[in-house]
């Protein structure tokens, strides 16, 4: 294990504040801790002396990209700037806290956020993924909410690469092993394989929690004399430097200092911590609370102090340790999991301790809030930290990184599927073969091999889960009030045009929530990009933020919080393949007055009319067809039409409320063919459709009709007696609507083109992932 701070004088001789002032020229390992020379100089300027070893540890983790958002901060402000008062209508807590909180009515509120744990999940897939789930769940607990569901957004390298299975098995069992043990239903997510994620898998996790309005808790340390209490797991030597080093530089060839230990999760501890915290909240013995994640105690103390009255004193000797040999810097940087820090009034302390003891949760009072304006930390009776907490938590460096449209972007955009002359299938046999090939391809095949390893039933409130378009969770058992969640991101679209790609991610998640019948309310995002020091990647990030912020404004849904993950690239800067595909994962939360009316993505009954809402254009660049059949990526992504998405959503939500829609499935990767197959396979009932009306109306051929990925389209199944009402509603909203056919039988029949028996389709759809990953 690396222990940079132990390069300070040997243990009994602490590097105290006094010592730092007395020995100003002592060399310090700031570079190894991820700090640049100018950043180190800035710390010296702030303190008026060199930092102590412990202070250096704190600044280095808190000023890392991961904790300070130093490269993205100036651009992330865009989200706040483009939020209108109208968009804030349902927002109880916005960006900047552990997670945003949204009002869903009847006194209920929901908090949700998506976060990344990418780099650790490549180094140690099981623990990286497990602690990724653990971290986002603690964010939700910190807001005062009971966590009620999780989702995972996973991206891996090529399925055929020899290293992919290692990462897939570890990550899936890590997400499952941790989430299942917490009693949180996993209600959906994403699973994508693409060579661009080789060596840089993306493991994002979303958690949603429920609370009453009056139960909102925030991370601040107010009230002079209040106690600072650390509870949960003991502090150990795991994850030291993880936040700083893993998130600061790409992996360099074999330098051990760049391979710090990944944190180790204990889901049992976290489950106990959830229940314990909820009991503490109910007893009203918590003034402020913060979970310990990246940068551990450094982060929790400096953030709590600077968000509150500004002063705090901590005695490190009172921190309960798993390993008594840890030095001060290590204790401050440790990212041991399952820990929380609370601010407690002295007169409530006894009751607080009684509750943690009832749950067998170890608890230590480690400090006190004061009005000094300083964060002071003692160790072995000596002062080792004396800083203004704001300079640690909020006033880190902010960079205006250079960015520019990549040199290769124009060539990429010019080589669309038509320009590249990709052969398109025309005969019925070729179209059938294409549909089955796409259905069996790893990114479009059934994800059941993954989702069957996750508990989706626990808590008894899951109304819809994967493979439905959105996950739907009941919040109020009396009324049936609940929420729908969907997340999306298409990295291939992002590569072709990051601005449009981000807007498309939002459009798809928004559409999926509406497809389930929910009114979209709010957004969370996890921006996964390459190195901010590479102007190409930086341009992608800036473009994506602009695109997402504009799209949020147009759809009227605010970003409430999220996360940025940079340095997801291992290639030579400046090349077309130097980084992952830009992957802005966008999660949308919607509300339903009664989740029992949520609309599933497939049909069960025969005799339902099948209609398509929206317009189909010749949009195959970046499509699943181009990828699976031709291994091609070039051109421009499908057009984004947010006005059309808004109108479509209003029709879908209205139809759910009116009870006029039985099933609905959005059209995205793989187009209409994929949607027809998936909706039929959902409950084993076939469909018979004709493309003639569609090809005539939209001026497209059967291939385009079946495989185009034009947006703002949804397939719906309605009872014959409801068809007129749905058609009228669509026409009233200006949404093009066309009847394609009728459900029934045991095959997907496209009249005059092809017929696929469901048994054959099921084998193609469900066989792929088990065959590859067993």
């Amino acid at each position, binding site marked *: 294990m690396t222990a940079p701070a132990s390069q300070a004088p040997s243990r009994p001789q602490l590097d105290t504040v006094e010592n730092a002032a007395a020995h100003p020229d002592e060399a310090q390992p700031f570079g190894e801790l991820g700090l640049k020379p100018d950043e180190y100089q800035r710390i010296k300027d702030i303190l008026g002396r060199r930092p102590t070893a412990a202070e250096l540890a704190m600044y280095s983790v808190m000023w890392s990209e991961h904790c300070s958002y130093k490269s993205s901060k100036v651009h992330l402000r865009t989200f706040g700037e483009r939020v209108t008062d109208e968009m804030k209508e349902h927002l109880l807590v916005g960006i900047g806290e552990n997670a945003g909180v949204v009002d869903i009515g009847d006194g209920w509120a929901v908090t949700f956020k998506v976060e990344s744990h990418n780099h650790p999940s490549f180094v140690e897939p099981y623990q990286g993924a497990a602690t990724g789930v653990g971290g986002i769940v603690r964010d939700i607990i910190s807001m005062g909410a009971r966590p009620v569901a999780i989702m995972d957004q996973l991206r891996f390298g090529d399925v055929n690469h020899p290293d992919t299975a290692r990462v897939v098995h570890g990550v899936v069992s890590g997400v499952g092993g941790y989430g299942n043990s917490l*009693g949180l239903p996993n209600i959906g997510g994403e699973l994508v394989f693409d060579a661009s994620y080789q060596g840089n898998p993306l493991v994002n996790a979303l958690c949603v929690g429920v609370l009453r309005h009056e139960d909102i808790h925030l991370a601040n340390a107010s009230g002079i004399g209040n106690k600072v209490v650390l509870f949960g797991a003991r502090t150990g030597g795991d994850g030291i430097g993880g936040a700083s080093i893993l998130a600061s530089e790409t992996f360099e060839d074999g330098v051990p200092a760049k391979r710090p230990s990944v944190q180790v999760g204990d889901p049992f501890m976290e489950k106990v911590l959830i229940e314990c915290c909820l009991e503490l909240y109910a007893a009203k013995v918590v003034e402020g609370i913060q979970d310990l994640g990246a940068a551990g105690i450094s982060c929790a103390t400096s953030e709590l102090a600077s968000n509150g009255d500004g002063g705090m004193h901590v005695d490190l000797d009172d921190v309960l340790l798993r390993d008594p040999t840890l030095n001060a810097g290590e204790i401050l940087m440790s990212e041991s999991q399952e820990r929380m820090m609370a601010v407690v009034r002295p007169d409530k302390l006894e009751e607080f301790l009684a509750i943690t003891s009832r749950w067998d949760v170890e608890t230590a009072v480690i400090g006190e809030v004061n009005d000094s304006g300083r964060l002071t930390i003692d160790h072995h009776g000596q002062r080792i930290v004396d800083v203004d907490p704001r300079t640690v938590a909020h006033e880190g460096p902010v960079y205006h990184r250079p960015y520019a449209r990549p040199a290769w972007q124009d060539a990429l955009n010019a080589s669309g599927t038509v320009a590249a002359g990709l052969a398109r299938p025309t005969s019925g046999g070729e179209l059938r073969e294409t549909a089955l090939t796409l259905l069996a391809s790893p990114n479009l095949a059934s994800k059941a091999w993954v989702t069957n390893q996750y508990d989706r039933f*626990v808590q*008894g409130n899951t109304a819809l889960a994967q493979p439905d378009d959105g996950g739907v969770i009941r919040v109020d058992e009396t009324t049936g009030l609940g929420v729908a969640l969907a997340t999306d991101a298409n990295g291939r679209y992002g590569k072709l045009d990051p601005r449009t790609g981000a807007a498309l991610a939002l459009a798809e998640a928004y559409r999926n929530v509406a497809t389930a019948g929910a009114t979209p309310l709010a957004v969370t995002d996890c921006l996964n990009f390459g190195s901010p020091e590479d102007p190409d990647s930086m341009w992608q990030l800036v473009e994506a933020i602009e695109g997402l912020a504009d799209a949020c404004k147009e759809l009227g849904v605010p970003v409430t919080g999220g996360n940025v993950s940079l340095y997801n690239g291992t290639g030579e800067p400046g090349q077309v393949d130097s980084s992952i595909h830009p992957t802005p994962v966008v999660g949308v939360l919607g509300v339903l007055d009664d989740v029992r009316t949520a609309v599933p993505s497939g049909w069960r009954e025969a005799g339902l009319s099948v209609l398509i809402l929206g317009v189909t254009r010749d949009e195959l660049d970046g499509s699943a067809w181009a990828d699976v059949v031709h291994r091609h990526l070039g051109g421009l992504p499908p057009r984004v039409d947010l006005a059309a998405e808004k109108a479509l959503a209003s029709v879908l939500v209205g139809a759910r409320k009116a009870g006029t829609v039985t099933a609905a499935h959005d059209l995205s990767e793989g187009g209409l063919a994929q949607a027809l197959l998936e909706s039929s396979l959902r409950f084993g009932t076939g469909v018979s459709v004709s493309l003639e009306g569609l090809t005539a109306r939209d001026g497209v051929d059967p291939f385009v009709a079946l495989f185009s990925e034009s947006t703002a389209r949804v397939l719906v199944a309605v009872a014959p007696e409801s068809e007129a009402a749905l058609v009228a509603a669509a026409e009233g909203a200006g949404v093009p609507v066309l009847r394609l056919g009728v459900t029934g039988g045991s095959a997907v029949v496209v009249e005059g083109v092809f017929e696929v028996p469901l048994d054959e389709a099921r084998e193609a759809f469900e066989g792929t992932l088990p065959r590859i990953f067993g």
Partner: protein
Amino acid sequence: MTALTGARIGVITFPGTLDDRDAARAVRLAGAEAVALWHADADLQGVDAVVLPGGFSYGDYLRAGAISRFAPAMSAVVDAANGGMPVLGICNGFQILTEAHLLPGSMVKNDHLHFVCREQSLVVENASTAWTNQFEAGQRITIPLKNQDGQFVADEHVLDELEGEGRVVFRYDGWNPNGSRRDIAGISNARGNVVGLMPHPEHAVEAGFGPAGAEGPRAGTDGLTFFTSVLASLVSA
């Protein structure tokens, strides 16, 4: 559900229990009062029956259920069960019952080594226990299954004895999801008041939130019959 009001059914929470709130909901939907019991408290508060819900008590870091069996509440449950009180152990609760020797055998890791979550079809083999008397023998039911350590194992002579005495209460129908001996999903004690099974009846009690049923997706409520059965057995007792 007549004459069933007034029945009080305890649901024990151990550290790491996950399905206690679901079990309490199932009890309420069946028409009884759910009483929250705490592992560290030996007082069963005079309940008429007890449910040991699913979860990962103590993280399953030792053998599943091996620590929970020593809880003060379990001493009381063992005494009450020996006195004839109905006890249902679901998943981790089943594991605790075997560790407490109220039921024979044990559960080891699934043969395929993965956690498995699915809508599981079961055959009700014994419809005369305290928890199954409202089913028909041979009836096929569907309730969720979700576990990592669900493979039921026991010595051959124990398995023969269970079969011979009609104490195999549920068998997996179709695919055996974890490699359990003789497809056994649940068993009872000789008296029929203590039943343990790996699948989760408490997740199939409410239309809209369970497995698929005859009425449509998520409409299955076969699990509710476990709880109406115990109420019937309490009335007839």
